């Protein structure tokens, strides 16, 4: 019996194709399917806010420049990582991240909690030429970011696309996206108030690159870097201790 089954399976290439799919698809399904219901088990973060338009634009620049190739945004549950970078990363912290930027390589340090650790001024100087600030650095210089005006006219489309995928942006946020992006980088204008009104008092409104006359890509990227790890403080509330890194002492 078994023999004739095999014979048929072999005879038709289609049968073979089905066998390959049967063999190959299960592993993925088993691992991925339960992740769709993972929100039942992971920690909640009711205080978590969404990215402002300026931060989202900065995130897209971070993606575009391939920063993730050298910087992770995922602090593992190991003692040395927690001591170096801060509380380990929680799943909920990247719930609005499309794509996730956990990264796979640290040619530079982890950035999951870089927000607020350095001044805007430091970030701008560092991005202009990393070796001015850290002489040993091998990071590329991103001086042109400060010379490139930020494209804000289509930010509403970006927010709308994010909402279509489930990120809770309100109509008001989508409508005012371009204005809010401008306002967040120009604290002295009328637009600035709208940003804190819509995204919360804790939102950093600042002339990130020190120039308030125009909004550049430098403004957006620094705004994003400054919010990393600060959308929610859920990680600081978690009490679980980091795992001991094996064979780490000495």
């Amino acid at each position: 019996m078994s023999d004739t089954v095999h014979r048929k399976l072999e005879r038709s290439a289609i049968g073979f194709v089905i066998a390959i799919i049967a063999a190959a698809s299960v592993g993925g399904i088993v691992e991925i399917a339960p992740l769709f219901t993972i929100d039942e088990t992971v920690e909640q973060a009711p205080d978590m806010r969404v990215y402002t338009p300026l931060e989202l634009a900065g995130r897209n620049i971070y993606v575009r420049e391939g920063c993730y190739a050298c910087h992770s945004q995922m602090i593992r549950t190991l003692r040395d990582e927690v001591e170096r970078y801060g509380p380990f990363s929680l799943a909920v912290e990247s719930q609005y991240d499309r794509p996730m930027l956990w990264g796979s390589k640290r040619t530079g340090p982890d950035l999951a909690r870089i927000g607020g650790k350095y001044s805007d001024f430091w970030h701008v100087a560092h991005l202009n030429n990393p070796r001015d600030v850290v002489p040993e650095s091998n990071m590329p210089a991103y001086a042109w970011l400060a010379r490139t005006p930020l494209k804000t006219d289509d930010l509403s489309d970006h927010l709308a696309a994010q909402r279509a995928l489930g990120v809770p942006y309100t109509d008001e946020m989508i409508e005012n996206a371009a204005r809010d992006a401008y306002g967040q980088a120009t604290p002295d204008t009328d637009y600035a108030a709208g940003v804190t009104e819509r995204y919360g008092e804790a939102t950093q409104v600042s002339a990130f690159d020190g120039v308030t006359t125009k909004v550049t890509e430098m403004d957006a990227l620094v705004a994003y870097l400054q919010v990393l790890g600060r959308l929610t403080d859920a990680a600081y509330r978690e009490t679980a201790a980091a795992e001991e890194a094996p064979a780490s002492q000495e």
Partner: protein
Amino acid sequence: MDISHDTLVAFSKSWGLFYLMAFFVCVVVYALWPSNRKRFDRAKHSILDRDDRPWQK
């Protein structure tokens, strides 16, 4: 949806394993089935035949 996370995880952990074992048995049976020996032998020698054109009916 009624399917809870725990159900899915339990299903994954149990049936995934059964599936693995059943699959393994099928493959071993196929590979070691005596009457398949001839065709495997023919297959492994077939690529060494000197031949430079498709078969013709």
